[in-house]
């Protein structure tokens, strides 16, 4: 506890609609989708045909560049449909679920007693290798590499984020097994970051075989990228891996029970959610299954949090990495004299140009309105740096990305960030630029040029 890292910069967005800590139903979807775009950097090769039988853990997709990396089915059943988009791009594989679930058996093992190769093989075969994210760039981890270290964030500060202790508190044994397995893959150790507020009450401070850190501060203190930059910043030619706590639990269950079990508690939340609460379900669950949470009107369904989640729509599916579905009203209404009103009591602003800072406790029913038009960057770098607790000049980095200047991007810290780390910069931007998109394009350019 003595070396707590206190982050002064950041912003907690006071948005309404956090989920009650109750699992109100268990959803067993009759169809699940395996969506290749959940995995950044995956070039999918299809391994199944329509009508094929699969078990939970059977391979569905493989990576073309790295055929050992598999994406597997979260359920047992029959491949119902292979959905393709323009230019025959593979969009999703729909799998009809059996009434009785059968799991492919990977064998119960104690990860402590396994070798690196054995751990790697089990992870690759089970499809859980795809749960490991490699930085820089936030892509699929390369099995041939040995990363400098592996980082896990054991708390989430994103708006309306599911409560880690409620969601995973009773899976401590699985997380511990997952940490044990992951520690075999690196010489730099598994770094787990905890929130200093509830350090002693969370079960995860008892994790062994891990290097624990504590953080305090507002969002994005819970982002693993921010934590890495304070623990050991990523430099050129280094790779680190990150695993979410949720995925660490899944990896643990794979070793403890020998099965590919992605079952999770998902927070269905947001200002447009009716009676927000948790459901227990699998990734790839169709949004249709939770339609009872969706209120009246034009609602945006986001898999993930409001800042960096993906808009999936009412026909979409829960993402592989997500345990949060956020429902928001589409803010397509105009507001007469909106910006000119001295007070707008129902609008939040992080800036003091409105008076919402006088009501620090108030929560707001936010919608997707942009609240302005796109402009060139006018405010200075320090305006954006105020919500980015990293040793980086965000506006300089964003402008380097816009210019496509590889050298500048490299110097200014493109290796350390993923779009999600700059999500708050995008949120507060009065010029309404799509900063996360700009950063993602910069990262794509780096991948392309550095390959």
């Amino acid at each position, binding site marked *: 506890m003595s070396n707590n890292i206190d982050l002064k910069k950041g912003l907690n*967005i006071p948005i309404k609609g956090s989920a009650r800590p109750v699992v109100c139903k268990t959803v067993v979807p009759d169809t699940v989708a395996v969506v290749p775009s959940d995995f950044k950097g995956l070039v999918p090769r299809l391994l199944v045909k329509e009508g094929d039988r699969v078990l939970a853990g059977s391979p569905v997709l493989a990576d073309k560049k790295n055929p050992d990396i598999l994406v597997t089915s979260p359920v047992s059943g029959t491949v119902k449909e292979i959905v393709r988009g323009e230019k025959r791009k593979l969009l999703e594989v729909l799998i009809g679920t059996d009434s009785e679930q059968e799991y492919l058996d990977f064998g119960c093992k104690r990860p402590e007693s396994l070798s690196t190769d054995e751990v790697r093989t089990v992870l690759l075969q089970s499809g859980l290798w795809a749960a490991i994210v490699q930085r820089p760039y936030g892509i699929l981890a390369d099995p041939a590499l040995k990363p400098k270290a592996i980082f896990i964030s054991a708390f989430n500060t994103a*708006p309306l984020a599911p409560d880690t202790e409620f969601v995973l508190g009773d899976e401590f044994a699985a997380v511990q097994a997952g940490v044990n397995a992951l520690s075999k893959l690196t010489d730099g150790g598994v770094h787990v970051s905890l929130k200093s507020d509830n350090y002693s009450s969370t079960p995860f401070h008892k994790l062994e075989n891990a290097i624990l850190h504590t953080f305090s501060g507002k969002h994005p203190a819970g982002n693993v990228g921010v934590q890495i930059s304070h623990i050991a910043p990523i*430099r050129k030619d280094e790779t680190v891996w990150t695993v979410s706590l949720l995925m660490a639990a899944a990896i643990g269950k794979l070793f403890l029970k020998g099965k590919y079990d992605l079952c999770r508690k998902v927070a269905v939340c947001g200002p447009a959610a009716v009676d927000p609460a948790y459901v227990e379900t699998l990734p790839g669950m169709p949004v249709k299954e939770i339609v009872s949470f969706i209120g009246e009107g034009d609602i*945006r369904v*986001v898999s993930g949090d*409001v800042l*960096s*989640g993906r*808009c999936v729509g009412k026909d979409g599916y829960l993402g592989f990495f997500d345990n949060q579905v*956020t429902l*928001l009203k*589409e803010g*397509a*209404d*105009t*507001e*007469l*004299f*909106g*910006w000119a009103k001295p007070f707008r009591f129902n*609008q*939040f*602003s*992080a*800036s*003091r*140009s*409105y008076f919402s800072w006088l009501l620090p406790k108030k929560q707001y029913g*936010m*919608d*997707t*309105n*942009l*609240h*302005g*038009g*796109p*402009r*060139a*960057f*006018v*405010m*200075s*770098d*320090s*305006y954006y*740096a105020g919500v980015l607790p990293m*040793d980086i*000049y965000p506006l300089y980095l964003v402008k380097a990305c816009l210019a496509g200047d590889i050298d500048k991007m490299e110097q*200014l810290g493109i290796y350390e960030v993923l*779009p999600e780390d700059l*999500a708050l910069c*995008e*949120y*507060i931007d*009065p*010029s*309404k630029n799509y*900063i*996360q998109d700009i950063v993602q394009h910069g990262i794509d350019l780096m991948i392309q040029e550095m390959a």
Partner: protein
Amino acid sequence: MNKIFEKGGKLYFLHSTIDAFETFLKVPGTVAKKGAHIRDSVDLKRIMIIAVISVIPAALFGMWNVGYQHALAVQGPGAPLDIWSNFWFGFLKVLPLYIVAYGVGLFIEFASAQIRGEEVNEGYLMSGMLIPLIVPVDVPLWMLAIAVAFAVLFGKEVFGGTGMNIWNPALLTRAFLFFSYPDHMSGSGSWIALRKGENLLDGATGATPLSFVGDGMDALTGAGVQYGTSFWDLFVGTVPGSVGETSAIAILLGAIILLWTGVASWKIMVSSVAGALLVGWLGNVCGATDVPALTQLVLGGFAFGTVFMATDPVTSAQTEPGKWIYGFLVGAICVVVRLFNPGYAEGMMLAILLGNTFAPLIDWCVVNRHLARKARKARIA
């Protein structure tokens, strides 16, 4: 928006204009397409309107002062302090300046936005608010129109519009006037508005207090019979000068609004004051002048420039350490010019323009130092 204004419609050339008026009246129903699904309710319109509001005290005082200075110059120190008639006189004098500044500037701004196919940026609302306040009240309108056109076109639009410009457009307007028509911008001819046939009182001067500063405290004290030049007079602002620059009190009100809402950087303001005080003090110590450093702060355009113009987020330094350096430079250069350039006493305009010019270099140094430090840390680790 009516289809006729959309791309391909007959009146497409008015697209940006219509869009500007529409979004001026109401916040549009545009939704975030990607990235963060919710957005802060602040936008550039809000930031600009707050900046504009912060200038209003200085503008109102300036209008009154134009009338008051007229009364003083014609009737002598016993002139009536009647607020309304003085204000009305000044209002009628300043209103045409506003009409020209906004008319010419916004026309170019709207046309350029249309040519670029963008929405109209709100930046000019602030520039247009400032321009009439930093020129002599009797500047001929056609000169002002040319100067505004030059500043907006060559100071801003050729770089790509607000956000891309290097120099503060309002100051560029003043610089253009100053170098093209020096007769109207210095000396004693244009600071006090006179009606046709009216003459200055015996012993009265049309010059600003600042123009006496080069000759020391005695000259300043004996400036003209009609206005006082004590620190308090200068602080309140009952002296001739550019329309809005004279009253430190009104400018301080604006500064409070800007700082309280966080629209302008307090670092720039503080360091600019520090720079001016330091050089003013050094001037006293070395015997270059006997004007106290504190008086430098209330003279001429220093306060106005520090609060409203040096803090422009686009043309000032971007980084936090850079802001300290930039502000200090602006304040220091301003007083240096005042002390060592008897021909041209008002140093603030050139100080800020010079600061603007060097701001990218300052930032470059700050960012590179930061990168070097990071690289060194990486090598050690």
